């Protein structure tokens, strides 16, 4: 209770110490965070995976899968069908799939969906999913498992999935007569990759787009006379249609991507929409049952058949695996159809079959591995489904927030959070030290008495003097609701020389610009399509670039709005404090959702937030800092990253063409993130524009402004 009852005691000493050591302390925190993160790759700092959910009982059944021949036959028939009839089109062989599923005696349905492409000139895409439901003999369709395969046409540049479809059908044929299923199994083939999956899931869960307004909420009390309240168009770009047949709540889903039965190893993909991950128990289950069925499996840089004798090698591999996972998570784009299930609270993973010459790169000793066949894949699938069949309740044990350092090692949220907290803590410490300085500065002007107790009185006295001088000048204009920021601290009012309104207005404007940028792509795409005849990605990219350039020029002048005199030191310091607090809040919140993005944003922007400060005169270091700030503009970061990435990916290309390729990749990336945010609800673009960009704008303002 000492903290509560006597906050005064000894605080002066603390303030002195804080002022002296805060910059090395922040630096230490930053380094500590990075070191902590890399240590997590080491065996000593992460844990072995284990089963938390007892009900899974993995691998306790005798495998009975006998559909090898059937699978081969399905595979051949499908290939034949595709070559005969679907060579030139991208369409899915719906009749063939429906016929086969009906022959197996599944309840077969098709599902149509439509996409009104949100950008560009209103293209419309249509697609069809086929799914069959195996009704569980033991229960009344209250729960379900999903086995899904994306359909890829022969002309697709990605690996095909024909073997996956064949395996799914063979497994359905095998599972159909079995008496032990306690959950329905839905066998689903989706078209247009993630689009079909998203449409199916939305239709399955009956998502509706109308958000009720106040008046619709009144029900029978409100007799609507006019319908003038709908200001914005509610129709969404993806129309999921309706499903004719449904089952119960989906407990888990497995997505298969096998182009041929003779794969060398299976890559287990987990990263979902917005970096969400499936329950660790499911991931663990899949890895364990692959081992049991004699299939080689991998995760990123970690290959189950490679054993590191040397602990140093293990550490390096662990770190690379973590980094690989993070790079997949950062964009928040699912790297397989499983990722869309997570948003609906369904645990799902993708099993991707890989050959020795896979585009993802050749792992060590891959040629010595024996290739798999339908029998082994089938037994693995059977074990997984029979294990899931045992589930008594939803996956809820184990971890939802983790990083994987190997196929069998993980880092839990409690272990990686300190890293993020150290980064945010560095910013908060800086904010605290700035806060202490503005408290103290007023003190300095007075003659000093070396008595601790005098301090408050002095502050008070001083504020009075300033008040008399400036009280008249300061006018609360009363506009701009953003004054509310101040109340949260409840404290900014104490020195009257601070104009609350202009600080609030500046903050509000910065965020307004951010949300304006968020909504701008429609305008750019429209202009680009109508007047310049450019594809949307080009017009959006250059549009954003122009806006950014404009912001760079204009934003320093925003500080001069709503005030008669230039901003003084205290005001800028308060802006700086708010900036630091907002940045650390952003880091924590994003890190809760998507640790990779949170860490990445914090690691990049913490140095910027720490470098920013109130300057008296321009010096070389300020120009240096401005340069760093410009480099850290979200758009610039993206472009530079893409350029470096394409340079690494295609080292043989000449520099200009690699840069051009990087720029094109950046265009694509922006376009994808916008479209993803509209169709799937990926919030990366929204967060980047509405929070990160305003933070950047304010840092830039602070770097550009000097005080007298």
């Amino acid at each position: 209770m000492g903290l509560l009852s006597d906050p005064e005691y000894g605080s002066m000493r603390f303030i002195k110490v804080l002022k002296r050591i805060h910059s090395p302390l922040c630096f230490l925190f930053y380094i500590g965070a990075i070191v902590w993160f890399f240590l997590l790759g080491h065996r000593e700092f992460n844990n072995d995976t284990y089963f938390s959910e007892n009900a899974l009982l993995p691998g306790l059944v005798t495998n009975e899968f006998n559909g090898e021949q059937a699978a081969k036959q399905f595979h051949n028939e499908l290939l034949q069908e595709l070559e005969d009839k679907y060579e030139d089109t991208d369409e899915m062989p719906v009749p063939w799939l429906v016929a086969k599923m009906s022959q197996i005696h599944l309840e077969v349905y098709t599902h149509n969906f439509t996409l009104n492409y949100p950008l560009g000139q209103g293209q419309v895409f249509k697609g069809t999913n086929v799914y069959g439901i195996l009704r569980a003999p033991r229960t009344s369709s209250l729960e379900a498992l999903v086995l899904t395969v994306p359909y890829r046409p022969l002309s697709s540049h990605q690996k095909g999935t024909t073997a996956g479809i064949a395996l799914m059908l063979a497994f359905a044929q095998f599972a159909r007569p079995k008496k032990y299923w306690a959950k329905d199994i839905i066998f689903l083939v989706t078209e247009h990759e993630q689009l079909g999956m998203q449409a199916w899931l939305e239709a399955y869960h009956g998502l509706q787009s109308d958000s009720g307004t106040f008046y619709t909420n009144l029900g029978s009390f409100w007799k609507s006379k006019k319908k003038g309240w709908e200001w914005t168009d509610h129709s969404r770009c993806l129309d999921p249609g309706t499903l004719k047949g449904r089952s119960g709540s989906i407990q888990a889903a497995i997505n298969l991507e096998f182009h041929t039965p003779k794969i060398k190893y299976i890559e287990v993909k987990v990263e979902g929409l917005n970096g969400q991950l499936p329950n660790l128990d499911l991931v663990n289950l899949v890895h364990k049952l692959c081992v049991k069925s004699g299939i080689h499996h991998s995760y990123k840089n970690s290959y189950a058949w490679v054993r590191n004798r040397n602990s140093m090698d293990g550490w390096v591999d662990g770190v690379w695996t973590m980094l690989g996972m993070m790079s997949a998570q950062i964009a928040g784009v699912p790297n397989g159809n499983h990722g869309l299930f997570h948003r609906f609270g369904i645990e799902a993973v993708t099993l991707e079959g890989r050959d020795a010459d896979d585009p993802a790169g050749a792992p060590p000793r891959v040629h010595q591995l024996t290739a798999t066949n339908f029998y082994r894949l089938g037994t693995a699938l059977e074990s997984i489904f029979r294990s899931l069949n045992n589930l008594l309740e939803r996956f809820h044990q184990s971890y939802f927030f983790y990083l994987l350092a190997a196929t069998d090692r993980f880092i839990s949220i409690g272990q990686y959070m300190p890293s993020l907290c150290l980064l945010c803590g560095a910013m908060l410490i800086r904010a605290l030290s700035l806060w202490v300085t503005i408290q103290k500065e007023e003190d300095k002007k007075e003659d000093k008495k070396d008595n601790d107790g005098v301090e408050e009185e002095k502050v008070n006295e001083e504020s009075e003097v300033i008040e008399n001088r400036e009280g008249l000048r300061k006018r609360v204009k009363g506009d701009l609701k953003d004054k509310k920021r101040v109340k949260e601290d409840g404290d900014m009012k104490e020195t009257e020389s601070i104009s609350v309104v202009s600080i609030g207005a500046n903050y509000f404007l910065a965020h307004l610009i951010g949300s304006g940028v968020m909504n701008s792509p429609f305008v750019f795409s429209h202009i680009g399509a109508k007047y310049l005849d450019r594809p949307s990605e080009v017009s959006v990219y250059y549009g954003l670039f122009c806006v950014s350039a404009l912001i760079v020029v204009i934003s320093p002048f925003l500080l001069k709005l709503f005030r008669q005199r230039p901003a003084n030191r205290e005001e800028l310091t308060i802006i700086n404090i708010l900036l630091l607090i907002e940045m650390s809040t952003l880091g924590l919140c994003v890190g809760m959702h998507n640790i990779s993005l949170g860490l990445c944003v914090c690691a990049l922007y913490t140095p910027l937030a720490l470098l920013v400060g109130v300057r008296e005169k321009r010096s070389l270091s300020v120009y240096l800092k401005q340069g760093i700030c410009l480099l850290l503009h979200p758009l610039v970061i993206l472009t530079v990253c893409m350029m470096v990435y394409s340079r690494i990916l295609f080292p043989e290309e000449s520099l200009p063409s690699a840069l051009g390729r990087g720029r094109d990749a950046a265009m694509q990336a922006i376009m994808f993130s916008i479209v993803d945010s509209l169709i799937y609800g990926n919030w990366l673009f929204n967060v980047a524009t509405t929070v990160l960009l305003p933070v950047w704008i304010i840092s830039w303002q602070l770097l550009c402004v000097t005080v007298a």
Partner: protein
Amino acid sequence: MALVLKYVVAVLVRYWLIHSDYWQTLANRVEIATPLNSWKRLIEGIYLFEHNIDPYDGDSFHESPLLLISFYSLLKYAPYLLPGVFTLIDILTAYFLYKTAKIFVRILKRNQENNIEVISDESKAMILTNLQLEEVPEYVLSVYLFNPYSVLNCVGMTTTVVQNLLLAVSLWGSVAGHRLVACIFIALATHQALYPITLIVPISILLADVNKGCKKCSYIRTLLVFILCWGFLIFISAYIMNGSYSYIYNTYGFILTVPDLKPNIGLFWYFFTEMFEHFRLLFVCAFQINALILYVVPLTLRFKNEPILLATVLIALSTIFRSYPCVGDVGFYLALLPMWKHLFTFMQQKFIAGCAFIITSVLGPTVWHLWIYSGSANANFFFGVTLSFATAQIFLITDLMFAYLKREFTLKHGSSRQVDGKPAKLVLR
């Protein structure tokens, strides 16, 4: 002019948010709407009432019959007025707080003049000037009008909006010395939410201070008027419900026994989901004593000379510890804090409390989303955040009280805090 502009902007912000697409989301947030005050349940109750079903039979409606009947007539005859009504109530609240602060400033000035001889020479500079005090009401007004907590509360159209108005009017009535107004409105507030009953203590002290004369008589008169009003309201409510008192089980009973454990920003739900059933009564009593009466006596003894500070602290504490708190309550007592602007320089933890307020206010909805919509986090995450929110509020309030003591001490004894030549330590007791 500036005042009118503030009102206009506040109205526009509220009106726009009510008519935006976010309304539904906001009105259903657990932080804003609790089982006690949510608009959805009010509508439900009114619907049942209209169809001659006793809304208190079921488990969905817990508002007082008075509110039921007034909103029933509003909904029945003028539903299009409702957004306007809620906005108006909120604006009126702000107005009454403004008036309260104005009178409070006058009282503060008078007290200062009365006590001028006890102030030590060293601390003469700390005497508050007119200029300093004149801005206080404006701050109170703008904090209430633009505080995101109170804005969201109004937009969510919770009955806490009404509750805030009742509290504001009773505070105004007591500083202005209108005994009847103060008592009627505090009785109304108590009738609606029970917890404001603690405020009768600072209000009777205030009334006794403002209306000169026999203090004991004043206390007794205030108490009597309050009890009469409250009893009358209880009776009237029963009359509305056709003479049946069963509504009490579903209003006061609901507040006291906490049967609905829907998560909110308070501390009850988590403990009672974890609790063994046969210890429930014990812990309900412990928690309610903590929220209702534990702090009244000690704080009254200590702050009997500053009844408004006492009222602020009691409102804040009951907000933190009550069974179904919402951000509207938080917004209300935050608006009272600027009255103590002269104490802010003595506060030590405002930075920590401010940071904690911002971070938890953002983190709370985040982990709620992860828990409910993504299904990946769980109740512990959300409770952790609400617990730190409550801790931040406690820090703020304790800090305020301590700042008051420090200022009082410094005024009396000068700034050198020494006893017999040694540095002394102040303790909140």
